[in-house]
């Protein structure tokens, strides 16, 4: 048969956004004619995310909506591993479930992947007409500053290292998950760095990132410190 795309959606307290992102994913894939499935990995959300996921499964069918929950918050890396175990696609899409990533870019990822036969296609906020909505000057400065330091130190060959909207060949993602050890932002960076080490090819597609959460969750000093620590670790070990 043809290609099948498994979308991994790790969720924590996304009762509001989950039905919307699933609706957009289903519409996008039906319009583009690609075969797909959506794997929802909920980490025991107390707000009823799992319950609304069950409703979505009834509406769209259990062949399209796969529920693979976990008892509590266990981290993003293990959520990907857990999700991939149940993925029947040959390509994996990872993205945020809070509507900061719009599924409309997935057909562009697919097109780009075919164009260059890439192992990975990464959404970038920093090139072409990529960009961000909802960030003030300070947030943008931190973002550009951190990215600049990352580019100088790691010379990664990709413009957006901390982005988490990507398309992977399934076996590539599996291989990378074995090798990556970091957490948080640094985890996404490490995937790209390791991918380059292993000789995988990376294509880029400009995306828009709509941050509706920034007002409530400012980027704290803690996160900046752990980002720098992680960056220096990658600098010294890769």
């Amino acid at each position, binding site marked *: 048969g043809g290609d099948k795309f498994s979308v991994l959606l790790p969720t924590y307290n996304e009762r509001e956004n989950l039905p919307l992102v699933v609706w957009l994913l289903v519409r996008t894939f039906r319009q583009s004619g690609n075969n797909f499935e959506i794997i929802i990995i909920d980490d025991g959300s107390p707000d009823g995310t799992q319950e609304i996921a069950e409703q979505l499964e009834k509406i769209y069918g259990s062949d399209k909506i796969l529920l693979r929950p976990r008892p509590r918050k266990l981290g993003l890396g293990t959520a990907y591993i857990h999700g991939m175990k149940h993925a029947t696609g040959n390509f994996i899409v990872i993205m945020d479930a809070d509507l900061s990533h719009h599924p409309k870019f997935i057909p562009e990822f697919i097109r780009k992947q075919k164009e260059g036969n890439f192992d990975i296609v990464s959404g970038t906020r920093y090139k072409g007409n990529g960009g961000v909505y909802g960030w003030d000057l300070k947030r943008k400065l931190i973002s550009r500053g951190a990215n600049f330091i990352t580019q100088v130190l790691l010379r990664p060959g990709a413009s957006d290292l901390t982005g988490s909207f990507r398309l992977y060949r399934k076996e590539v993602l599996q291989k990378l998950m074995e090798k990556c050890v970091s957490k948080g932002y640094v985890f996404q960076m490490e995937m790209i760095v390791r991918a380059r080490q292993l000789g995988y090819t990376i294509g880029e597609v400009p995306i828009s990132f*709509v941050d509706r959460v920034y007002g409530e969750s400012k980027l704290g000093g803690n996160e900046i410190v752990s980002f720098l620590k992680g960056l220096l670790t990658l600098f010294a070990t890769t």
Partner: protein
Amino acid sequence: MTKLGQWLCGLALLGSAWAALALAPAGLRLPAPYRQALLPLPVYLLVALGCYSLATVGYRLATFNDCEEAAAELQEHIGAAREDLRRRGLRF
């Protein structure tokens, strides 16, 4: 080699070249004008790199795209999604 390793090698190479030329003993020195230019070179380079970094980050900050249309479009899509899902029986 790690990136850190590459940096250390590069710095060691440049550093030893500069030291050899700038701090050479009396018999092997370059003519005075060249030595005068060479001695403060590391500091000049550092300042130049600092300026380049500031200018680059400043430029990228100024040209960071604001996705107004994307946000507006998302609002529309959210509306359509909620309506359609309600019709399909989703209880929000």
